[in-house]
């Protein structure tokens, strides 16, 4: 079978007469519809996971890349002095947009999850924290470390790089995993449609024989099967995507809190991404059926 532009045009234009020559086969029809619907449903979740992971990686990357923390570890009587010295260093450091020391209340709030609300901060040797926000062009971390070492001996610069990198990497891999899962689901659709088309062609060997007897070309015969399976995959995927989107929409949201479990879903234009699934499914089904029909018609004598 030659699946050329003419065949594709005939397919899109449709030929209800060609479609009628293949008898309606209820079982494979229902099976193809169900399988493509279920696959589309799962693909919506895979895409939701992938897009959510992408957003998370972006958020972590952006937010943490622009901030740093300076920890002042010094005896209580020198803490205020060294903090002031560090802030002075930061004021004259190129690429630092702003810097401020965290108040006792803020530090207490940070420690509260581990030590409770009633922590007597003033009785403990808790280091003073300085929040540094970088300007868009960033700052020279190595140079700042050297200046702090010289002028503020108790200051330790933490640019979050040590723990930001693996988190961003994990989120990016999760995003990749989502895309791989979506691709595998489409591959499964292709395999399923190929099997169903092969079964349909084998079950309709008599029909193929009759069509050949009256002068039907392989392209004509294949077109009837290809059109049928493509439309089934399209219909099944549409239903699956609608149900998948509804399920994602109903998932509990975590609001602004960036989390994997509460962040799965689509945002903005991301809601349009799953709408491409039925078209992709139909295209996959078209190619899979054309391939299966081409092979089967070569072997059916």
């Amino acid at each position, binding site marked *: 079978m030659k699946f050329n532009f003419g065949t594709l045009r005939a397919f899109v234009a449709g030929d209800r007469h060609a479609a009628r020559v293949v008898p309606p086969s209820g079982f494979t029809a229902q099976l193809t519809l169900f399988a493509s619907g279920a696959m589309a449903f799962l693909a919506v979740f895979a895409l939701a996971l992938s897009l959510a992971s992408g957003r998370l990686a972006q958020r972590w990357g952006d937010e943490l890349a622009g901030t740093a923390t300076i920890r002042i570890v010094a005896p209580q009587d020198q803490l205020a002095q060294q903090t002031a010295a560090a802030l002075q260093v930061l004021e004259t450091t190129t690429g630092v947009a702003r810097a401020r020391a965290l108040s006792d209340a803020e530090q207490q709030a940070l420690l509260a999850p581990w030590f409770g609300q009633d922590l007597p901060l003033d009785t403990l040797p808790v280091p003073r924290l300085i929040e540094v926000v970088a300007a868009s062009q960033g700052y020279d971390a190595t140079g700042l470390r050297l200046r702090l070492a010289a002028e503020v001996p108790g200051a330790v610069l933490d640019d979050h790089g040590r723990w930001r990198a693996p988190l961003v990497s994990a989120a990016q891999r999760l995003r990749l995993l989502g895309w791989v899962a979506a691709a595998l689901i489409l591959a499964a659709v292709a395999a399923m449609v190929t099997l169903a088309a092969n079964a349909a062609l084998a079950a309709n060997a008599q029909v193929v024989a009759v069509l050949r007897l009256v002068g039907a*070309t392989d392209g004509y015969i294949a077109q009837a099967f290809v059109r049928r399976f493509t439309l089934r995959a399209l219909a099944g995927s549409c239903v699956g995507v609608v149900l998948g989107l509804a399920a994602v929409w109903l998932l509990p949201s975590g609001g602004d809190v960036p989390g994997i479990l509460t962040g799965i879903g689509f945002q903005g234009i991301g809601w349009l991404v799953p709408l491409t699934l039925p078209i992709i499914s139909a295209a996959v089904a078209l190619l899979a059926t054309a391939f299966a029909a081409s092979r089967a018609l070569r072997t059916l004598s």
Partner: protein
Amino acid sequence: MLRHNRCGEAGAGVIELENVAYSYGGGELLSDISVKLAPGSFHFLTGPSGAGKTTLLKLCYGALMPTAGYVRLFQTDVRSLERDDVALIRRRIGVVHQDVQFLDHLSVRDNVALPLTVSGRHAEAAGPDLTELLGWVGLTNRADAHPPELSGGERQRVALARAVIMSPDVVLADEPTGNIDWDMSQRLLTLLVELNRMGKTVLIATHDLGLIRAAKAQVQARVLRISNRRVQLAGADL
């Protein structure tokens, strides 16, 4: 009485087999067959069951390829044709198969129109010619029935109508009267003779000698006999 081994007429044939052999499963079913069907000729192909009549017919419409020799359909060597080209040539050859094959989910009308449908002539498939053709084979009142509802004779007539709806140059019929009574056989034969008078080349494979004798009373028919894997022109004793 059997005469010579080269069968057919002078001049270009619509279907020509030259030194054709056909083997299957290691055994040779047909050997050194040379047959030429001239335009407008009427032939019978006879021989005992299993002699290879159906195989020879299939070679004549490109459903099988010879293992040796040449099969030319309308002066074109079938070996040089792509599958789709064979399909296009087949539209010029109407075939009435031994075990009549239909699409059971379609009506008689749609089955008869099937050759028009697969060749994209949808308008004609619903046109007056189809009604006229159904009338010709006496099945106007069965147009909306489905093949499983038909008797053996009706099925054969539907098959004949389907075979001729494209106005083919050649009509090949494989045991067309195999499952029907004598009266219906005569009716079918009359239709085939009528087609021949319209200029169609007709080749009927049958082991029904009574049918051959009846035909020879109506039309000048040649009788080819398959024996020992070869085809010979049968004599006047048939």
